[in-house]
């Protein structure tokens, strides 16, 4: 490739690539610089490792990191686990499959915060669920479901919101597998589980990886579900970041959490995607 051609390609890429590099890159740069003491809004701006030391040394950071990773992993794997059977079920169109597909994807159109508040109304102390349980006689008094300690409410919301996305990606991939391949596996004696494990899953692993990455990153950075329905004895990384900034004015420490969150998103998403491929295709990349 000649220099002239290389420059032409670079120039043609500039509008898109340049926007990404400038807009995303500058934000990333400021976050990293701020975590090392620069862009200090309330003191001297100078290189310092103090903010990293203070944040990494706090119990709150470790809990937040572990909690966000836990929510993100369960949400990503759970969404895939629910979406796969549905995608296989809808592989061949049937009467009403369009309506069913649309209904299953409806949560994509509901903003997360709205869903979280609706959820609160259901699980509140005097909410619909408790009223129902008491009406049926299953419980004598309301149960405190709101802000449960294990984050089950947040996981439910994440699955409700993200499963349709996984379904969208997996449905297309599953429908792309030809009948001959599936029939051949059946003729060779493969049961439903074996057909899924040895044929469908390996052939749709790229869609699965895309779903895992997108869901993991979104769930790891969750703020809306956590502040509304999440446990109060632990904060998500995004919540902790905002908390440091708004409650204490610690911009630099908030930047440390922000950079760590980006690291978690990158490592976790790639790790899950790599694990999925390794499990289903072995070392054949």
């Amino acid at each position, binding site marked *: 490739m000649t220099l002239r051609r290389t420059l032409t390609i670079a120039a043609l890429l500039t509008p898109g690539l340049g926007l990404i590099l400038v807009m995303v890159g500058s934000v990333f740069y400021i976050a990293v610089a701020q975590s090392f003491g620069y862009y200090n809004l309330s003191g001297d701006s100078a290189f310092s490792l103090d903010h990293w030391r203070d944040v990494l040394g706090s119990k709150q950071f470790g809990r937040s990191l572990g909690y966000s990773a836990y929510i993100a992993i369960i949400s990503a794997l759970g969404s895939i686990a629910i979406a796969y059977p549905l995608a296989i079920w809808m592989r061949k169109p049937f009467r009403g499959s369009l309506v069913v597909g649309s209904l299953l994807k409806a949560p994509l159109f509901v903003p997360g915060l709205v869903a979280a508040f609706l959820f609160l109304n259901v699980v509140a*102390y005097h909410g619909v669920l408790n009223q129902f349980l008491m009406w049926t006689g299953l419980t004598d008094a309301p149960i405190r479901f709101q*802000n449960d300690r294990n984050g089950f409410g947040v996981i439910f919301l994440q699955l409700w919101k993200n499963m349709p996305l996984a379904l969208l990606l997996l449905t297309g991939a599953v429908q792309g597998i030809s009948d001959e391949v599936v029939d051949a596996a059946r003729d060779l004696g493969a049961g439903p589980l074996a057909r899924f494990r040895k044929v469908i899953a390996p052939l749709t692993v790229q869609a699965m990886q895309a779903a895992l990455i997108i869901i993991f990153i979104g769930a790891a950075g969750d703020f809306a579900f956590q*502040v*509304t329905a999440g446990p*109060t004895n632990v904060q998500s990384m995004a919540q902790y970041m905002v*908390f440091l900034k708004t*409650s*204490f004015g610690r911009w630099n420490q908030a930047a440390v959490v922000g950079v760590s969150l980006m690291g978690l998103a990158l490592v976790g998403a790639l790790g899950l995607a790599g694990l999925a491929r390794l499990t289903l295709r072995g070392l054949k990349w």
Partner: protein
Amino acid sequence: MLRKLLVAATAIGLASGAQAQDQNDLLSKSWDDIVAQAKDEGSVNWFVWYFQPRYRELAEAFTAEYGIEVMIPEGTHEGNIDKVLAETGRESGDVDLLAMGADRIELFKQENLVGPLNDVLPNAATMTTEVGGFDGQGYGWAYWGNQTGIAYDPEAIDEADLPQSVEDFAAYWDANPGRFGFNYENGGSGPSFFTHVARNLTDADFTSGKVTEEKMDALQPAWDFFLDHTDGYIITASNTDSLIRLSNREFALVPAWEDHLFKLQGEKEVSDRIKFYIPEFGMTGGGNINVIPANAPHPAAALVFLNWVSSPETQTRFNEVFGAAPMNSAADDSHALIPNDMRARAVSSPANPFNTELRQAFIEHVALER
């Protein structure tokens, strides 16, 4: 370059000198002359960071009385303060009157503010320059009082049984687990509660903002107290969450801000049956003040507005409309949620940075350990 810097420094120095002279001239005038100058200036802006639409309505009374237009721009607390601080070097700034939490007075040098105003404002005798343990020293004047305390459901607990001491709360928690909720984030009512529990249970010096390892270690009995009674209380998500769940009968008692409860009751978000008191062990009382930057573009109008907003009539109106504790001793506080004599239980919040470290310590030692 050096020459340019010298010229700039000289210009700033001259501007400061001119400001000081203008300020002396203004403050030496009679009040009638100040009002006349204010009317000539024709307008005043008030940088206040909350309830702006309601304040605009209430300020129409000021315009009707003096013929001076009042502009209340949108803005945040920190943003407004940063703007005034950033404009300090300008000969003429944009801000006439700045509202802020009383604790922020420490950010301003007196030479950059108009004052002292004790002998200038006609209402000064009944106004207050001290609030929440912070002294405006005649430069900052209170216009808004707020108080933390305990909101309670009279249908769930009799007034005679209300916990008044830290020990009373422990006994209540033991007898009624899960009926008390408080927050540690998204609002200061919960932090006020655990701060003053800690103040009552420990020997740490809460009057000083100084932070030492020994002082933080001295807070351990308070953290042990909360951990020993962990089944007795619920940690909520915010000030509002606490009050809504109290109103919905999930809780019997929650910490709250007096003006916040008043506002939510006015909006019918919280039931009118909910009442409020300050426990005898004391909870944080504070307030907001107004200051006039030395480079205010309409200094006379700012003085007249400052005098008006803290006047008995306006403070009575604020009490009626917002439930704010009046910051003028001649005002009527009959719409307040608590009797005036109960306000003697109000105590200051600890000074920073100790206050911040204490909140962080509560999270580390209690919230994460439950």
